[in-house]
């Protein structure tokens, strides 16, 4: 068994931000991530981010990823890649399958004083006839293919779902040289930002609201996609079917928080529809119902990279404070500033329901014994 002060699970925006804050304050920080490269989803976000200009907005996600990595290195954060955390046991023992340079792996158990869970979220799937055919994939998977691996998933894409992920990935698929032959949305309105929708409309993408995919057809991969209009009770209207020639179907049907480690250590969970499912209860320090275990980012409710960064900062500051690296007054100031920025990101018609959802989660936090 090895001892570490702070172990962060996940090297995405939340995990890296937490690690940087804690290490900057003087903490000994190890970040473990199961991927070969750090950065989580940041390195496939090739678009410029929204947000406050005081806070890196207008900067592309990949650039934010690079800046975070440079900062993490500067403050001496240790990062283990290709290293999956496979278990979390009583009294903060983290079991890691560490990837070695030799390509081998070894199991290491670490006794951590503080743990920060920033495990992110996974994509939801939608079922329709033929959804298991090759060519049907998550929108995030397609985004990884084009922006990280530089492989086109196909040529003609039908995108299902018009939230920001569906809109942004549609745009990026066109940037990669694919055609988006339809954006299909079951709801009467487009879910994501109008400016994202406008980008793909200008590029000629047809938008079908109140529609769904009935079937993906093909023998060894998708060749045709059948869509149909929905009635007021979300049922397909017979006779409205359209056949689209397409070889890729991308699903942007939301994400759900990854919470298996949280449940392993008996963190109390609460169901929250806005945030995508079961999330750990936490307080304003991002500390869970298990003392010394913090949560941040999409693990605590699906939002966006900016909010994940800020929540990570909160967790990192709070963990460092509880280890005595930051004085209470100083920590309070920095946490207040961070909360202010978070509040700003959770305002307006798109953000406020997440503000309410977050407040509900904070409100249900039981007093720690």
């Amino acid at each position, binding site marked *: 068994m090895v001892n570490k002060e702070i172990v962060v699970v996940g090297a995405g925006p939340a995990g890296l931000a937490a690690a940087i804050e804690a290490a900057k304050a003087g903490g000994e920080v190890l970040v473990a991530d199961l991927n070969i490269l750090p950065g989580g989803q940041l390195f496939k976000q090739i678009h410029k981010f929204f947000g406050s200009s005081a806070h890196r907005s*207008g900067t592309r996600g990949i650039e934010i990823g690079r800046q975070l990595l440079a900062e993490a290195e500067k403050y001496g954060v240790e990062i283990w890649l290709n290293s999956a955390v496979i278990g979390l046991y009583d009294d903060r023992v983290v079991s890691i399958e560490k990837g070695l340079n030799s390509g081998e792996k070894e199991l290491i158990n670490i006794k951590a004083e503080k743990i920060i869970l920033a495990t992110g979220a996974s994509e939801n799937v939608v079922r329709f006839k033929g959804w298991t055919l090759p060519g049907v994939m998550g929108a995030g998977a397609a985004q990884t293919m084009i922006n990280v691996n530089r492989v086109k998933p196909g040529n003609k894409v039908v995108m299902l779902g018009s939230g920001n992920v569906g809109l942004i990935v549609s745009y990026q698929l066109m940037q990669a040289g694919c055609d988006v032959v339809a954006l299909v949305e079951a709801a009467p309105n487009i879910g994501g930002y109008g400016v994202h929708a406008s980008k793909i409309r200008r590029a*000629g993408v047809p938008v079908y609201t109140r529609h769904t995919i009935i079937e993906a057809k093909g023998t060894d991969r998708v060749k045709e996609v059948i869509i149909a209009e929905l009635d007021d009770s979300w049922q397909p209207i017979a006779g409205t079917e359209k056949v689209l020639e397409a070889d890729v179907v991308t699903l942007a049907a939301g994400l759900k928080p990854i919470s298996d480690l949280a449940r392993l250590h008996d963190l109390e969970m609460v169901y929250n529809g806005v945030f995508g499912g079961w999330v750990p209860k936490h307080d304003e320090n991002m500390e869970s119902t298990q003392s010394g275990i913090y949560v941040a980012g999409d693990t605590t409710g699906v939002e966006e990279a900016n909010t994940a960064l800020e929540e990570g900062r909160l967790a990192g500051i709070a963990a460092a404070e509880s280890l005595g690296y930051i004085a209470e007054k100083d920590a309070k100031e920095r946490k207040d500033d961070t909360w202010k920025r978070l509040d700003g990101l959770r305002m307006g018609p798109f953000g406020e329901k997440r503000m309410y959802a977050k407040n509900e989660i904070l409100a249900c936090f039981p007093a720690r014994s």
Partner: protein
Amino acid sequence: MALEQNGYITREELASFNQIISEERFKKGPVAIIECIQQIPCNPCESACVRKAIRIGEPITSLPVLNEDRCTGCGVCIARCPGLAIFVIDKTFSDAEATVAFPYEYTPLPQKDETVDAVDRTGRVVCKGKVMKVLNPESFDRTPVVTLAIPTEYADEVRSMKRRRDR
């Protein structure tokens, strides 16, 4: 709102948010057109403008307001808007032609003097456009800005060019 149903802004919507530039201002030369009518947490356009012609203020979800008199139509804000929602229009370009400058993040980029298909907010080709300029300096961070000359009557409609597939 038509934007939420169809994915593009109508002139009526822009008018209802006071985002229509006066014809008097158009007569004075190039000016920025901001087509941003949803309260999203975003403000890089505000700091992009050295003349402080764009105001968002607090809270960060406020809509941008353009000061027509301060704006010189320099176009620095075009590449800074993460939503690609700012354009610059010059209706004084010539007797019969206006220019429209817009962000264009696709390859291949058009070349100067080339004739391309100009499209409206729905992607429909409305007229031909001649490429006057393609700017892509480092400060734009990989958001090239294309300026097209088009018949003035289409200046309020043209917002991009047809994406080319020749590769």
